[in-house]
């Protein structure tokens, strides 16, 4: 394991320091792992977060048009309720707070506890849970799907709704509509190594890829032989399209998300296939994003997220936002 780091116990702390030192538009609440906007806004406040290791998520999406606060946990570990509560306290005005949570037991429970504590303090808190990963089978008998890179679309849309002055219930409703309409799936070409353990999260042979990967280094849903970029895209896209029930004439936004070590050139090669396939099906791509938005440290691989747009979602997606990792 080769990492550019100092003492492993200070990894998250020093990363957050480096982030606010780079971006004066971000502020770190003293003694916490919470990043907030330098200037508080008068509107429904949005708080998200999760384990560290997904950079630029989530701090990179704090700023006008998106989040008000991002809470960072230990590496790939949900943040604790006290930190989340600090974030809520710091950003809430009198219009309430929306928590945007990815569907992992740990995240859901920690955010839920923070919400309960905040409610006890008289703060109006709502919560939405993102579950965009179609690699995981959806059925009433399971815990549902994981939240992965599609979450960034939810940040953007809820952020624009809040900025537009929508009340909390409406922001939450719009965020839920975004969640219902976003479908994602990822693939890994190589694992990642959590600094504290020093061991790769799984082992892949030179000719293997891991399909349906999560974002915490967990193995995916199946292992397959490596093949051409177009074939790999097709595997993900077939599953996504089937699940999303996208049809000719539909408007969509596409997110091609690098997991950490994959060159941008490879992401563009993937996007070429995605764009052509969607065009062939008569689907209108309104916006495409190709970059690292929600990573797994230095994992090689990528995910595709497809967001089906209605008129309002499209408007909110295109609304201005100026954060360090998303601008529009």
């Amino acid at each position, binding site marked *: 394991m080769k990492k550019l780091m100092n003492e492993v116990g200070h990894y998250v702390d020093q990363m957050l320091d480096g982030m606010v030192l780079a971006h004066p538009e971000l502020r770190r609440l003293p003694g916490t792992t919470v990043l907030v906007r330098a200037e508080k806004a008068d509107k429904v406040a949005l708080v998200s977060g999760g384990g560290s290791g997904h950079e630029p998520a989530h701090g990179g999406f704090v700023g006008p048009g998106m989040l008000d606060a991002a809470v960072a946990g*230990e590496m790939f*570990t949900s943040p*604790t309720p006290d930190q989340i509560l600090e974030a809520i306290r710091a950003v809430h005005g009198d219009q309430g707070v929306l928590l945007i949570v990815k569907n992992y037991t*740990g995240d859901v429970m920690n955010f*839920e506890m923070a919400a309960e504590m905040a409610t006890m303090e008289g703060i109006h808190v709502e919560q939405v849970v993102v579950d965009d990963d179609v690699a995981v*089978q959806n059925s009433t008998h399971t815990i549902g799907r994981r939240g992965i890179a599609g979450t960034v679309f939810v940040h953007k849309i809820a952020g624009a709704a809040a900025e537009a002055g929508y009340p909390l219930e409406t922001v939450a409703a719009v965020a839920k509509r975004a969640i219902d309409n976003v479908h994602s799936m990822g693939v890994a070409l190589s694992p990642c190594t959590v600094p504290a353990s020093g061991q790769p999260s799984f082992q892949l042979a030179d000719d293997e890829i891991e399909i349906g990967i999560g974002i915490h280094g967990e*193995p995916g*849903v199946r292992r397959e032989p490596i093949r051409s970029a177009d074939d790999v895209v097709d595997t993900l896209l077939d599953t996504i399209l089937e699940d999303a029930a996208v049809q000719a004439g539909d408007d969509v936004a596409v997110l091609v998300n690098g997991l950490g070590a994959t060159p941008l050139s490879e992401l563009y090669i993937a996007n070429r296939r995605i764009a052509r396939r969607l065009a062939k099906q008569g689907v209108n791509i309104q916006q495409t994003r190709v970059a690292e938005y929600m990573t797994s440290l230095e994992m090689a691989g990528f995910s595709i997220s497809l967001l089906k747009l209605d008129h309002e979602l499209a408007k909110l997606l295109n609304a201005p936002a100026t954060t360090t990792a998303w601008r529009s």
Partner: protein
Amino acid sequence: MLTTSAFIAFIQAYTNRLDELQPLLDQLDNQIGDGDHGTNMTRGFHAANERLTSTPADDLGALSQAVAMTLLSSVGGASGPLYATVFLRFSAQWKGQSQVDAKDITEAIVQARDGLVARGKAQVGEKTLIDVWSPAAQTLQANPTESGILAAAKAAAEAAVGTRELVAGKGRAAYLGERSRGTCDPGSVSSAVFFEEFANAIVGGVEKTPWPTLVS
């Protein structure tokens, strides 16, 4: 009878056992989760132990509350809120008391079990620590005495071993579906150890289960 000093000794003994078992718990979690359950638990209980050194030792409710808040703010992940819930329920049940009897203990364990179910929404059979807390609480309810506490610890250990055959329905292991079968649930093992050390602190004379040879 659980006194404040027995409570403090329990937390200390449990922390020691977690130190011993951390590699095992990480390994189990690595097989069906994200490999950090041992790391999470030791981080939390070391912090709790530390915290207890500066907590007035005359109120089991306050001590439990201190453990709960420390776990809450130091663990994260799934196990943080879950184990914190256990101690929050203890705290509500034992508020203002410097010692409690087997009936109070039984009620606290039942309350903790209910809290875990409310928090994690898992049912018995879904390969989570509920599979341990549920039979342990039932055993105690049927026999709310010191011997019941020993019986609960035994039931907990058996239940933890029994999770090996289950397919996970909640938690990270659930994403593996059928592939989660064949490995004991790490949270169930840490819970069984909890009951073992709990019984030992209250009743004494409990033999330590050789977990590494039993479940790995």
